């Protein structure tokens, strides 16, 4: 029981003082029993404000503090730290929110003052019953897991590994590099994508601190921050990764031809394949669904020709267990299935391709070795229409948001097309041109200077006319419908979160928004963390973004992980649930209610046991307990009743 409580009423400028009559409030609350001091100050959160609190605690030998100010979500930590510095247990310092819950929502001054008094009384009642608490120490394994090895995952893994900690880098594809490996050149510098990516993929592939698991997926995660247990499913490669030398003979001999997903179905690959020549790891993999041998029909050619005898048809799926302290989700994006927008003819009308498809055509390792030719007949297209917002900004048939990167990459596409087909005509059909990054507007200017035409109007229909592709567009600036007969059409398709990433986030109970993007802890100030302790975000899995932003975010996520690893211990808030074993009957209501799987009934003891570090102090268990056996520390029933009566 606290007997020497000090109250500090903050003016918060005019936020509180402009509505609540502060001098009157101070006078009233001074009279509350067990209160030995009641002061007010303009800005309690400021340095002088905090100094006042600390000095008063020492002078008046306070054993409890109530700060009547703004919401605890803003300054509870500030004031608890100040109390701690003055020698008072921080959990004996509580906030009475008389701003968001009083002055900001009440207009009548007398009413507000009365309400403020009520709120302060309530919190005084709580402080009276509060116990001094200590933060819980959590053991922490200083090892990280990065899910996804596109540029985001690679960057995050490198940053953490270079700081000296071990990283498990898991990638579902047979090699790393993500979509950046599919690109030809990147905007606005027109750097060759593979050239700037390969140094990083090689570094990640060889780094002594990075354990690279390719063709593998995260199956399950259990545990909590500092102590995660991860089950990884290693998919069968059917190739011994240590024996394979990457010589590529099997690639020439395999009889099967399948559409290459990496080339957006513009070329064929074999059933045994690697994604691209510079793949890291430079090993092949067998696509079991299309492999004759693995489907029960006799073949076995690759095994016969492999000089290293690396083929393993008997390979099976395996599960690996890893333990880590922090997890970075870098699951990336995919392109929206634009065949859903029937009027664009994708997949039906010849020579209508998507953005990544055009990247593959531009790429030296693509279907035409870097020459711009059209898929249907290999002829050089003399007029190409680039369609922006194919599926984006479309609440009707696509996704409601802007995919951010398409304006820039389409400008780049058109420019590169003009560079390679000198007498070619490039027409971009757009709604807006968004150039928010460094050097972007200048790049757009360069593109228009080099003769690329821009027509302002969203394309409605794309259809075939003999060997041409006809585009129905518009120019709203001139107010006309425009029909264009082109040789090829490139759709700048919407960016959507990788569905495997969405699935994983849901399984791990990481918040995901209505569009499937992983949700950051705060849209402005906490872009690389999630609300689930120990999970961090990097890259397009969190929202569409370009390469510089992805790399920045990945390094940011790594920094958060390193900040965690840089401390000697992790601390967990002590305002958690506690079971009174004498009253507990082991009914299991609390276990069923808990969203964090933090309380379970111990079968042998027949009592509920709280896993302290997993408890987030939400209190749902204490509501669900019919016997009142489980309670939150410093939110016990007695205190709550006193607060209500106050």
């Amino acid at each position: 029981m606290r007997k020497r409580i000090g109250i500090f009423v903050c003016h918060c400028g005019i936020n509180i003082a402009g509505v609540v009559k502060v001098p009157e409030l101070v006078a009233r609350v001074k009279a509350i029993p067990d209160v030995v001091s009641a002061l007010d100050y303009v800005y309690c959160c400021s340095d002088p404000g905090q100094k006042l609190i600390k000095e008063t605690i020492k002078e008046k030998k306070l054993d409890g503090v109530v700060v009547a100010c703004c919401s605890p979500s803003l300054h509870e930590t500030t004031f608890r730290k100040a109390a701690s510095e003055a020698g008072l247990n921080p959990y004996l310092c509580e906030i009475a929110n008389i701003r968001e819950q009083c002055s900001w929502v009440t207009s009548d001054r007398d009413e507000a003052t009365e309400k403020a008094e009520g709120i302060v009384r309530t919190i005084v009642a709580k402080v009276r019953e509060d116990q001094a608490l200590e933060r819980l120490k959590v053991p922490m394994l200083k090892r990280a897991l990065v899910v996804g090895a596109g540029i985001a995952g690679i960057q995050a893994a490198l940053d953490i590994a270079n700081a000296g900690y071990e990283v498990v880098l898991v990638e579902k594809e047979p090699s790393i590099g993500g979509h950046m490996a599919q690109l030809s050149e990147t905007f606005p510098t027109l750097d060759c994508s593979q050239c700037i990516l390969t140094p990083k993929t090689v570094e990640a592939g060889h780094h002594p601190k990075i354990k690279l698991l390719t063709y593998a997926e995260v199956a399950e995660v259990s545990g909590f921050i500092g102590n995660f247990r991860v089950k990884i499913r290693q998919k069968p490669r059917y190739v011994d990764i240590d024996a394979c030398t990457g010589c590529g003979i099997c690639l020439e001999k395999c009889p099967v031809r399948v559409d290459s997903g990496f080339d957006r179905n513009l070329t064929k690959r074999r059933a045994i394949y690697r994604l691209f020549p510079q793949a890291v790891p430079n090993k092949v993999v067998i696509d079991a669904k299309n492999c004759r041998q693995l489907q029960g029909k006799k073949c076995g050619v690759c095994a016969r020709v492999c000089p290293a005898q690396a083929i393993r048809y008997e390979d099976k799926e395996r599960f690996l267990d890893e333990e880590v302290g922090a997890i970075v989700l870098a699951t990336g994006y995919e392109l929206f299935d634009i065949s859903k927008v029937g009027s664009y003819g994708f997949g039906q009308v010849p020579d209508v391709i998507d953005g990544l498809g055009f990247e593959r055509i531009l790429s030296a390792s693509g279907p035409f070795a870097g020459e711009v030719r059209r898929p249907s007949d290999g002829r050089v297209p003399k007029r190409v229409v680039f369609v922006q917002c194919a599926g984006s900004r479309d609440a009707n048939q696509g996704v409601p948001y802007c995919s951010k990167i398409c304006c820039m990459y389409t400008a780049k596409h058109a420019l590169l097309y003009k560079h390679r087909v000198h007498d070619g005509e490039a027409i971009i059909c757009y709604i807006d041109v968004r150039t928010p990054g460094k050097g972007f507007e200048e790049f757009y200017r360069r593109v228009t200077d080099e003769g690329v035409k821009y027509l302002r109007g969203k394309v409605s229909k794309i259809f075939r006319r003999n060997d041409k592709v006809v585009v129905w567009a518009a120019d709203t600036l001139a107010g006309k419908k425009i029909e264009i007969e082109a040789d090829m059409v490139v759709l700048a398709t919407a960016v959507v979160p990788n569905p495997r990433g969405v699935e994983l986030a849901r399984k791990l109970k990481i918040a995901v928004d209505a569009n499937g993007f992983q949700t950051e802890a705060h849209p402005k100030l906490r872009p690389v963390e999630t609300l689930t302790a120990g999970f961090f975000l990097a890259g397009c899995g969190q929202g569409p973004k370009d390469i510089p932003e992805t790399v920045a975010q990945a390094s940011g996520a790594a920094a958060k992980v390193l900040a965690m690893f840089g401390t000697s211990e992790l601390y967990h808030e002590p305002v958690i649930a506690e079971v009174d074993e004498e009253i507990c009957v082991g009914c299991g209501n609390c276990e069923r209610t808990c969203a964090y799987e933090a309380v379970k009934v111990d079968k042998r003891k027949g009592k509920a046991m709280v896993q302290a570090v997993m408890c987030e102090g939400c209190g749902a268990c204490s509501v669900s307990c019919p016997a009142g056996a489980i309670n939150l520390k410093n939110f016990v029933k007695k205190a709550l009743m006193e607060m209500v009566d106050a």
Partner: protein
Amino acid sequence: MNSTGNSDLVRRIEELSGQRLQDCYQCGCCSAGCPIGEMMEPPPSKGVRLLQLGLAEELLASDGIWLCASCLICGTRCPRNVDYARIAEACRAIVLRTKKSQVDPDKVSESDLQDVPQQAFIASFRKFSV
């Protein structure tokens, strides 16, 4: 520009059509997809723009609104779910209700009467006459 001119007319058009003109972000997809688009002046997106600027009279006086075939492609593809066919219909209603027909049943030729399916006549007179 008198941007507040005739907001009553614009409101009436919104009411009759049930469409929210402010939803249109002028992407031009409706004009691009309209089968009559090249011959329609103003084309659909320009029609909506005129209304957004309060220039309802200009749209009501135009030829374009009488060329709509009610095929509904505009509304089906609009990323903001605005249906221009209904807006054009509302405009036509306002004009027709001042007793200004655009087609005259008496002017239909004998050969057409014999030839053309009567559903076409009924529909045409419904849309374009009073």
